[in-house]
């Protein structure tokens, strides 16, 4: 299972849960699994072309991911964050 850390901006989807376990062999698949449980959450992070939105960040085991087709394995952690931006 993949452990996904949910940022405050998205906890309205997870009922307040900060950490959610999902299955998935890639970041994309893990986010699909997340979206299946919490409909709508993926589109707030990933656009329709499969790109990570400009002010969102995804870290896989601490390394910033720039694509979502990167592989994951059981026990990995995905950390989703709202980037420092706005005003």
């Amino acid at each position, binding site marked *: 299972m993949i452990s996904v850390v949910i940022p405050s*901006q*998205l906890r309205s989807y997870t009922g307040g849960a900060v950490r959610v376990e999902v299955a998935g062999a890639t970041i994309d698949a893990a986010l699909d699994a997340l979206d299946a449980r919490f*409909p*709508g959450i993926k*589109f*707030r*992070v*990933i*656009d*329709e*072309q*499969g*790109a990570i*939105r400009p*002010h*969102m960040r995804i870290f896989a085991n601490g390394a910033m991911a720039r694509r979502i087709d990167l592989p994951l394995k059981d026990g990995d952690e995905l950390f989703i964050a*709202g*980037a420092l*931006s*706005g*005003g």
Partner: protein
Amino acid sequence: MANGIRLLVGTRKGAWIFRGDAARKSWDVQGPIMLGHIINHVVCDPRDGKTLMMAAKTGHLGPTIFRSTDHGATWKEAEKPPAFLKSDAPNARAVSHTFWVEPGHASEPDVWWAGTSPPGLFRSADGGVTWENVAGFNEHPRYWDWCPPDGGTPDGALLNQIQIDPRDKSHMYIATSTGGVFESTDYAANWAPLNKNVAATFFPDPYPEYGQDAHYIAVHPQMPDRIYQQNHCGIYRLDRPGDRWERIGDNMPKAIGDIGFTIVAHPRDADTAWVFPMDGTEVWPRTSPGGKPAVYRTRDAGATWERQDKGFPQEQAWFTVKRQAFCADAETPLGLYLGATNGQVWMSDDEGAHWRRIAEHLPEIYSLAAAPA
């Protein structure tokens, strides 16, 4: 007289609903709704009087649509918000934000339309639950001419407005920030520019076929062959079936000019309309000209204009009013409402003769819509 008025306010930091009594004197407030979300537009469905549609995103999160079917008491997110078709092309588009939501024709109670940035047209046939790409515009062979990827406003290029002919659901107009106004007569299957004689002074050819920045168009509800336009480069009127816009802003006082974001037509008098001018000189401050806010009214289809500023600050007031933040109710006398960039809501219950502030300290206001309570 209705039982009161609801004012739906979309701001840079959330939405609010103000409810006025039958006399439009006392106002209660509900909100914030979706605090922290950027609300570009929130409107009430005139077909049922209770469904609200809200275009939202945040500084971080992608765009979505929230719907309420109980006057705003509860909200649900769209299951499939507006999104372009998946593409491997280098210029593949992704919706940054939905800017405009438009109830469909009265004959199609579940249909809604949406305009986005980058410019895109989307349709829902299920009351806003799911939204589909409208290929007739988004995949039009001339799309990239009309909506070049480097064009647009500071917040991105816009399909900023959708208007439907109340006599014919297939007859539609859209306004864009990169191509001007476009018309469809076949239910959005095909589109053609409608910009003859509309200036685009930021181009070498100041009267191109397309390329104008159409800030706002008002198709008159009772006389739909009359269209008013507040363009980036002036105030215009078009009487169909003609296709040549007349610059009625030339009749505005020269010291004020005819630059602005928005225009409101009187719903029962096609010769009457209001604008809220802004400073479009030199570096385009986009403030009230001279720091003295005022609306200007025409009662003769733009031949003459009169200043209406009673109640507004008389000096050092530099707010302006954005595209969808000026509206009218349907009462007699007509009520006018404007939401300002400084977070104030102003109203007139006598067709603009006198203005008073009914809210302040809100975030920057992006949209304002009036509906019966």
